[in-house]
């Protein structure tokens, strides 16, 4: 093998602390090296040409470049060599800059280290073999999990670009939390007015297959080639036949046995119901836990009134298989329930705030329903206990957020804004009412956000008190709030009619199970984890799976929509090519020596190792061996180190290669 060594000065970056000509001279003497040279800027055009020319003139088979980190210019040099006819995987980089010249002062020791690093690379490259990138086809179809505003936006963007989308929503209707909101900050425009047209657009879009009341049950495969199993839960209503007339809902005799999920428990709903009048699709669901037919086999009122015969008590869950190339997770959030927790629960809860104990202590989403024109009070703010307008209302921020002793360390980010909005809505509706807000800090970063909070304080006269509340208790029909005003430095006591707690945003139930199903990391709170917090905020470490909205971290509507569009863009980038190329650094089994112990299968994090039966010419069983599915293998090499018979090797980091590197450092 003829090896060429090229030493880069990187201007003075390497040249100042490493004697590059000396390194080149020493390299030239290494066995196998037929050519060595140093140059001021190897990555520049003339530098690359120098390599290309040497490859041609000296008929090099392999190249070692002593330069910056391989994370920096490995691709550059591989490309240059490839264009001159050397396989890109016959190029090794010795990191003379980040790992040598930049971290040492003494030129002698740095130079001898540089020579060692070159020797390591030269010895390794002798065992390299020409490789061809793996090409996998891309299924140009996306799965969006979650039909809130993030999922809706992502689905519309991808569908708008001309690709098929499957939108899966676990509830009977899409719309998510945004559909529950009354008005939205900082413009106070009606949430449903801006959301429902989008929901309808999703429903009518020819490229979107909407699967509501469905959940992702299983995911297999890899970027560009996922196989997804979706469980379509039974509605007991035939979706093709139902026209959404609502007669069944009107006539259902069970009116008061179930509380409405959409109204956050502040209203009742029938056994057969749509979550809210604007639901998409407008097809009812039977709640079998309260339906008389499912309890006693009687009633069947809905069957009698349905002119289309759409009610189907025998309907069962259905499993649907789909093949997609990209997955967008948009499962959103839920509110931290702050009532008293069991003693062994990791989060302590806020028993002292009386949530769940006093009817007039509600959380933010419940207040949204009270303030919403479509809510149980038709937009009038009436307290739940006696349906009277509260004359004095107290909002408490950071309940569960920024409080490690009782809740979570993080800031839920939207509470400052929605509390200001709540207080404002309250003042607009109860003109003679008093509104108090207990806060730790006001975090109103965002376009027109600070101005919005100022408006609540200055124009609407909401009283902001900086401090925490220690306890809430009932006394003579009033809720007594005991807290402190840390600016005035005194204790505060307010006798209020109603309390609204801005509780922390936490990931949806089962978010961590979904993460495990998809093989995507999540943080200690259960929020999905991005690959890089700054530069790759919507990608997960699993290729082809992207994140949108509050499943990643607490965020408001504009941010969720922006993130959803970003995730859609990432999926579209993937769909932009017919095949994907990836590095061929994957494991490979030597079937002759493999004993079929399958230890490798146990340690593989990607289920990339399969069982393969070897048969002889006559079709008789010889043995069972491991087989690496190279499109699933990510190239960690754990199997390689685990295999007792050394029958599986990681191409690019084979035992020979690493032993050669180690022995390059041995004393001669």
């Amino acid at each position, binding site marked *: 093998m003829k090896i060429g060594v090229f030493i880069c000065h990187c201007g003075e970056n390497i040249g100042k602390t490493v004697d590059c000509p000396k390194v080149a001279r020493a390299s030239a003497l290494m066995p196998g090296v037929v050519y060595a040279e140093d140059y001021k800027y190897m990555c520049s055009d003339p530098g690359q040409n120098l390599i290309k020319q040497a490859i041609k003139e000296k008929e090099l088979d392999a190249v070692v470049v002593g330069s910056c*980190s*391989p*994370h920096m210019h490995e691709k550059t040099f591989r490309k240059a060599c490839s264009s001159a006819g050397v396989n890109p995987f016959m190029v090794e980089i010795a*990191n003379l*800059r*980040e*790992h*040598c010249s*930049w*971290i*040492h*002062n*003494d030129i002698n*020791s*740095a130079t001898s*280290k540089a020579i*060692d*690093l070159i020797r*390591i690379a030269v010895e390794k490259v002798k065992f390299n073999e020409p490789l061809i990138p793996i090409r996998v086809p891309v299924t140009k179809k996306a799965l969006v999990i979650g039909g809130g505003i993030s999922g809706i936006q992502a689905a519309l963007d991808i569908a708008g670009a001309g690709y098929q989308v499957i939108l899966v929503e676990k509830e009977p209707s899409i719309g998510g939390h945004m559909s529950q909101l009354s008005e939205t900050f900082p413009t106070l425009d009606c949430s449903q007015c801006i959301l429902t047209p989008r929901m309808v657009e999703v429903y009518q879009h020819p490229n979107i297959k909407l699967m509501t009341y469905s959940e992702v049950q299983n995911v297999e495969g890899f970027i560009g080639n996922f196989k997804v199993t979706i469980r379509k839960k039974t509605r007991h209503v035939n979706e093709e036949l139902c026209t959404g007339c609502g007669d069944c809902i009107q006539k259902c005799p069970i009116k008061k046995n179930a509380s409405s999920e959409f109204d956050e428990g502040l209203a009742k709903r029938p056994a057969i119901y749509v979550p809210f009048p604007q639901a998409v699709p407008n097809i009812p669901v039977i709640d079998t836990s309260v339906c008389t037919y499912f309890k006693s086999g009687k009633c069947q009122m809905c069957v009698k009134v349905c002119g289309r015969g759409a009610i189907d008590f025998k309907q069962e869950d259905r499993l649907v298989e789909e093949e997609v190339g990209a997955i967008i997770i948009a499962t959103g959030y839920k509110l931290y329930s702050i009532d008293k927790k069991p003693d062994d629960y990791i989060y302590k809860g806020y028993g002292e705030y009386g949530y769940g104990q006093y009817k007039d202590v509600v959380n933010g989403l419940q207040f949204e329903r009270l303030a919403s024109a479509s809510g149980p009070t038709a937009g009038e703010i009436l307290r739940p206990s006696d349906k009277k307008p509260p004359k004095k209302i107290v909002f408490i921020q950071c309940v569960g957020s920024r409080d490690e002793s009782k809740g979570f360390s993080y800031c839920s980010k939207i509470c400052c804004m929605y509390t200001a909005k709540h207080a404002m809505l309250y003042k607009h509706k109860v003109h003679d009412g008093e509104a108090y807000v207990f806060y730790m800090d006001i975090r109103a970063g965002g376009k027109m956000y600070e101005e919005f909070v100022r408006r609540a304080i200055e124009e609407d006269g909401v009283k902001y008190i900086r401090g925490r509340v220690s306890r809430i208790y009932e006394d003579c029909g009033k809720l007594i709030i005991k807290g402190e005003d840390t600016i005035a430095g005194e204790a505060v006591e307010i006798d209020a009619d109603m309390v609204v707690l801005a509780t922390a945003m936490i990931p949806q139930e089962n978010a961590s199970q979904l993460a495990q199903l998809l*093989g995507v*990391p999540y943080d200690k709170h259960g929020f999905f984890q991005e690959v890089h917090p700054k530069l790759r905020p919507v990608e997960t*470490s699993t290729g082809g799976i992207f994140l949108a909205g509050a499943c990643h971290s607490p965020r408001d509507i504009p941010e969720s929509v922006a993130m959803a569009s970003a995730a859609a863009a990432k999926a579209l980038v993937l769909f932009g090519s017919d095949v994907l190329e990836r590095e061929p*650094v994957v494991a490979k089994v030597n079937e002759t020596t493999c004993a079929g112990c399958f230890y490798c299968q146990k*340690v593989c*994090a*990607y289920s990339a190792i399969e069982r393969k039966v070897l048969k002889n010419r006559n079709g008789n069983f010889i043995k069972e061996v491991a087989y690496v599915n190279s499109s699933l293998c*990510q*190239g*960690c*090499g*754990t199997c*390689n*180190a*685990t295999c007792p018979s050394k029958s599986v090797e*990681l191409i690019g*980091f084979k*035992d020979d290669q*690493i*032993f050669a*590197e*180690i*022995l390059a*450092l*041995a*004393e001669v």
Partner: protein
Amino acid sequence: MEDKNWEPKVTAFVCNWCTYTGADLAGTSRMKQQSNARLIRVPCTGRIDPLFIIKAFEGGADAVLISGCHPGDCHYNSGNFHARRRWIFFKELLDFVGIDSKRLYFSWVSASEGKKWVDIVNGVIDSAKSEGPFLKYKNLTKEIELNNE
């Protein structure tokens, strides 16, 4: 036989995603460190075969350092867990084969911990200096050669 100018040799096996990048960061931040360590890049600590370590000692290393992503942060989900489990057993065996396990170091250094990497490298080099040269293998090799002659 102690050479006054003796400098320890440290072979470091580092994973590509966390520690190698962390060491890159130390470089871009110009964090000066002693120059005795030689890094061998592997994709993941899970790839590191215990034989690599023995081979490094056989080849004259005075200390071996292994470093990868923090538990839970592995680029390959669980490679470092397998590695960690492997070392727990291997460290004991190392003593058994006659290599002082004090010469073998493990650490978790993330891509953002340039400073930690420098401290670890300097720490390992300093302790390798105080341990003195690792001669057992060399003496053994000599003995074998003598016997063969």
